[in-house]
């Protein structure tokens, strides 16, 4: 354990040097908020004061929303090293409380940001020559299917041929993620980027046509040693589209019997005021430390893991 503490300290120091050199400003935004994410797969922690008359607050699942508000207010390029909190599954890659290094670059394209992630990784993990694959290319190459065009029926069948999964109510994204995790990720090189995700997996990123004119999410994932390490977007700046996505989430939450959550009106107001075109990325510091220290379980890099 002492070794991983030292490693964390040196990585934090090195990361700060990296951003200082590039004149990206460090910010701190609140961990507590009055609203939370609508994503059906994220469970946030609700916190209550002892005084029952106080409204409940939520711990952030990531600093994304508050940082976008800063960007809309004219902050310029910013980064934050912040704790994020996600209730639910514990696994060898997940602790309910974890650390993200998240940063935003106004004026950057998705490719520009991948370049910068690559530079940071070269500094922190000493990995070079990191290949980039599109999501579609990986599915075509390894499974001979087009993830953007395949019908749900056929996708379900293909998935069940390869993976013993009997659960009902799985959607296209579930099947694609199962195939990605079981059939493609084990065959990825030690480090790589995967980009241009299916539209349904866009979350808060822009959807735009790829080289073939197919609408894809301008999103990338950076993989290291088979782990998702960083998730980057060309950020959605259209307030109406963002609101529509939140509303779709709320409908889905209701269908799944999940509690309704208050939508972040302050984020939407910031988008309405004008978010500059930017690319942003969230990198899991704990998993980076796992890669650096050759740890198989996240518990090995966290001082006092939960559970």
């Amino acid at each position, binding site marked *: 354990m002492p070794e991983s503490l030292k490693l964390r300290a040196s990585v934090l120091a090195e990361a700060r040097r990296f951003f200082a050199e590039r004149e990206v400003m460090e910010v701190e935004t609140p961990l507590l908020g009055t609203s939370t994410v609508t994503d059906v797969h994220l469970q946030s922690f609700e916190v209550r004061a002892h005084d029952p008359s106080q409204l409940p607050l939520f711990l952030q699942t990531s600093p994304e929303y508050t940082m976008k508000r800063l960007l809309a207010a004219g902050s310029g390029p910013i980064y934050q090293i912040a704790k994020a909190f996600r209730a639910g*599954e514990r696994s060898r*890659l997940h602790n309910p409380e974890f650390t993200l290094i998240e940063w935003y670059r106004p004026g950057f394209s998705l490719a520009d940001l991948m370049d910068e992630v690559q530079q940071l990784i070269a500094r922190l993990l000493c990995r070079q020559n990191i290949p980039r694959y599109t999501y579609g290319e990986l599915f075509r190459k390894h499974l001979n299917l087009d993830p953007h065009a395949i019908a749900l029926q056929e996708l379900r069948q293909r998935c069940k041929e390869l993976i013993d999964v009997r*659960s009902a109510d799985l959607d296209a*994204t*579930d099947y694609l993620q*199962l195939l*990605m*995790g*079981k059939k493609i990720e084990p065959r990825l090189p030690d480090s790589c980027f995967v980009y241009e995700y299916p539209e349904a997996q866009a979350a808060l990123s822009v959807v735009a046509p790829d080289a073939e004119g197919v609408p894809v999410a301008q999103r990338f*994932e950076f993989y290291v040693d088979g782990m998702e390490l960083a998730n980057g977007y060309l950020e959605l700046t259209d307030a109406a589209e963002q609101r529509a996505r939140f509303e779709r989430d709320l409908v889905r939450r209701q269908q799944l019997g999940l509690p309704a959550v208050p939508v972040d009106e302050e984020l939407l107001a910031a988008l309405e005021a004008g978010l500059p075109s930017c690319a942003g990325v969230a990198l899991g510091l704990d998993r980076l430390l796992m890669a650096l220290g050759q740890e198989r379980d996240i518990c090995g890099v966290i001082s006092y893991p939960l559970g």
Partner: protein
Amino acid sequence: MASYATNEFKSGLKVLVDGEPCSILENEVVKPGKGQAFNRVKFRNLRNGRVWERTFKSGESIEAADVMEIDMEYLYADGEFWHFMKTDGSFEQVAADASAISDAKDWLKEQDVYQVILWNEAPISVSPPNFVELEVAETDPGLKGDTAQGGTKPATLSSGAVVKVPLFVNIGDVLRVDTRTGEYQNRVSK
């Protein structure tokens, strides 16, 4: 019977999957960044020993199986069943069929203790201890200087198993045998 939700899954849990009694060997939670969490579970079928894997959506449940692994004393075989008795003083007996006894029948000795897996109180699997001591029922007298088979000869034990033994072994000798490999270890003084 009760059921277990995915967040209760752990190694060693006895469950019923597709009507078969199984033990969970491994349970891995997989959750992509913006997606549904799944449990990738490896099972061992307790009836046929087969190891297999299934993926469950987090939050799903599977039925618990009434499975017990207990020590039982071997009593006798009646041609169709092999009879065992609990060692807890209850004198309760169970009858294991051919599929439950399987390879363990090579290593049976009356009054020796075996590991029996019971499902709904019926035996589905019998395991011998790692080493057993069995008497030689049949073997040729080893002629001195006969190295045609590299210094070993076959011997049939009281259980019916045939093992390779050194030439000096005689009928009536009690041998210690490794049940996992079927290999002679040493002679045991009676």
